[in-house]
């Protein structure tokens, strides 16, 4: 391995035959299935491929091919990381992303076969070392892709957290907040603030907080609910808490949480009926006035 490494033809081929290699490679990638669904533009693919071949050509000029963690591979690795990030955003799968690198093998081997027609042993050595190199680089894209997905998922969770707390306007001045899922600090904070803001925006008289979808009501959740009710009251709106299932009611009693100041109803429908009655009365009064 070491003896052939010194006279490897790879740098020569990558650099001397770059235009042809680029053309073949881009052609291969364009005919692959993943490009038919138009995740990225052809011009962008061409440019990425050109830049990668350029970086690869530079790196192989400067040292050996066995370990991409070495510093002469920095630029190539960074470039691939950028490709990986943009593809993760464009909706490529990890496989499709790694294929960017792996798909270079075929046109490259084809060129090598032509160049080393008369030296089968050298050809095998070349193919082996290039395979090892491209496999490392391909795996590198997958690793970066993975890290990126995690970041994206985290961001999406944050966004979802806000999206998944829709305050709905049930009636002229009646809001409903159907809570679903675990009410733990971060999300609860967002939810409650959203409700209070919406009370201001819509000038609501009654807000129904429905906890049918909340699996556990412990003292922290109860405290959040109580605080929200108090804050809403300061802004002139009454809250009704609905969706208190029997097992939750029992548990709240055992915990010793005092909900006597809060209007509670078993179902959202019951709560809505009460809310209508109350606001209906005030609407009628306003009309008389």
């Amino acid at each position: 391995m070491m003896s052939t490494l010194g006279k490897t033809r790879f740098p020569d081929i990558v650099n001397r035959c770059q235009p042809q290699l680029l053309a073949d490679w881009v052609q291969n990638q364009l005919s692959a299935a993943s490009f038919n669904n138009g995740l990225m533009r052809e011009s962008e693919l061409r440019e990425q491929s050109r830049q990668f071949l350029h970086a690869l050509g530079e790196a192989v000029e400067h040292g050996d091919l066995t370990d991409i963690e070495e510093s002469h591979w920095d630029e190539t690795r960074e470039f691939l990381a950028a490709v990986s990030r943009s593809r993760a955003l464009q909706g490529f799968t990890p496989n499709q992303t790694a294929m960017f690198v792996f798909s270079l093998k075929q046109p490259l081997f084809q060129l090598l076969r032509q160049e080393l027609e008369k030296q089968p042993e050298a050809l095998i050595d070349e193919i082996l070392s290039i395979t090892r190199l491209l496999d490392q680089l391909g795996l590198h894209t997958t690793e970066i892709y993975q890290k990126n997905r995690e970041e994206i998922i985290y961001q999406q969770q944050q966004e979802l957290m806000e999206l998944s707390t829709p305050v709905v306007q049930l009636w002229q001045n009646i809001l409903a907040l159907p809570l679903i899922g675990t009410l733990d600090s971060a999300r609860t904070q967002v939810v409650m603030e959203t409700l209070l803001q919406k009370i201001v925006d819509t000038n609501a008289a009654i807000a129904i907080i429905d906890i049918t979808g909340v699996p556990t009501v412990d003292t922290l959740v109860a405290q959040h609910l109580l605080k929200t009710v108090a804050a809403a009251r300061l802004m002139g709106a009454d809250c009704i808490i609905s969706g208190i299932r029997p097992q939750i009611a029992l548990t709240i009693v055992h915990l010793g949480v005092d909900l006597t100041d809060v209007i509670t109803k078993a179902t959202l429908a019951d709560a809505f009926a009460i809310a209508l009655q109350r606001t209906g009365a005030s609407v009628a009064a306003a009309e008389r006035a």
Partner: protein
Amino acid sequence: MMTVSRRETRALRSSDDVVRVRQAVRQWAMAQGFSLVDQTKMVTAASELARNTVDYGGGGNVLLEALNEGSRRGLKLTFSDQGPGIADIELALRDGYTSGSGLGLGLGGARRLTNEFAIDSTPGGGTRVTITRWQCGDRR
């Protein structure tokens, strides 16, 4: 004779861990044949103690044990931390007492929601709270 049919320790470091422990307790309680009310009581008590472990104990862990005694089935949870400990346990248990900004109902609530409740704590030596609940109708 009482036997432990299953035993597992879970870490309690963050708010996410509290959620995970709640889910685990729910699953274990279901597996032990707890009714919905019993599951809810045990999960809620666990939630209170898990949060105390994270908030006041500086993190720790919980040991889950599925208990079998004849045909009786129960669930025992032991919350441990190496935090500052509780100087006055009676005061900490008093409804409405909080050294933080809670409702001060967690310890008392957990005691009322379970069949057996014990606190072992020394100032500077950490805290251990053990709760046990049996399937409804077995022991009150």
